[in-house]
């Protein structure tokens, strides 16, 4: 059982429960998410970006989640612990830094994603990978925002009882 939600028809505030209120959308939403994870981009890289997006948006539930496909691909929790230091910590290489810089800028102000910055993503992932990565960021950003919107105020730290 996840957090409470003010949506009276949803059993909890989990993304599956909320999106599941519209079954025709939920099925296709899941299909798109599946394609993101099957796109050929390293699932560990995607997971690091997903968690970082959740952290920046204050989505504690999303940040605590682990995508099974990423865990199966060898997600190192040390990377997660050091995620806030990606730009300087030696655990993060060129590819991770290019991806995480773009992920952060995507959330904070998408207009700030520079040609140079995105060129690093294209160089690291190729055009198909960069396209998948962009869709992944949109998906992760939306997942966290949906989760935050539908959580009950009483479940938020400092929120109304």
């Amino acid at each position, binding site marked *: 059982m996840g957090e409470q939600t003010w949506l009276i028809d949803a059993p909890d505030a989990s993304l599956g429960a909320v999106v599941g209120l519209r079954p025709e959308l939920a099925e296709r939403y899941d299909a798109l998410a599946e394609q993101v994870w099957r796109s050929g981009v390293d699932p560990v890289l995607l997971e690091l970006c997903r968690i970082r997006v959740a952290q920046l948006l204050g989505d504690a539930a999303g940040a605590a989640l682990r995508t099974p496909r990423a865990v199966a691909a060898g997600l190192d929790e040390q990377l997660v612990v050091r995620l806030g230091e990606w730009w300087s910590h030696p655990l993060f290489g060129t590819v991770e830094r290019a991806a995480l810089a773009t992920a952060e800028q995507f959330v904070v102000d998408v207009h700030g994603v520079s040609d140079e910055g995105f060129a690093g993503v294209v160089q690291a992932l190729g*055009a198909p990978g960069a396209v998948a990565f962009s869709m992944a960021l949109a998906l992760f950003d939306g997942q966290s925002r949906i989760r935050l919107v539908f959580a009950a105020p009483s479940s938020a730290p400092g929120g109304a009882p």
Partner: protein
Amino acid sequence: MSTTPRVPSAVPDRPAAFGTALAHQPAMAAAFGELYGTFWSHGALDHVTKETARLRNARITDCGY
């Protein structure tokens, strides 16, 4: 924000645009089309409400498209 496409078109003889860039990932493009099409053709919200939200979102993110 750049106005120059950052990935080439995946469709021969077609310029780089959202759809032709997405075509680099055909399965993903198909899944996105299914979701987006379902969103616009089904559901509890009327089209005016959906379009109003879409336009407002585009303005806030300064997306001229």
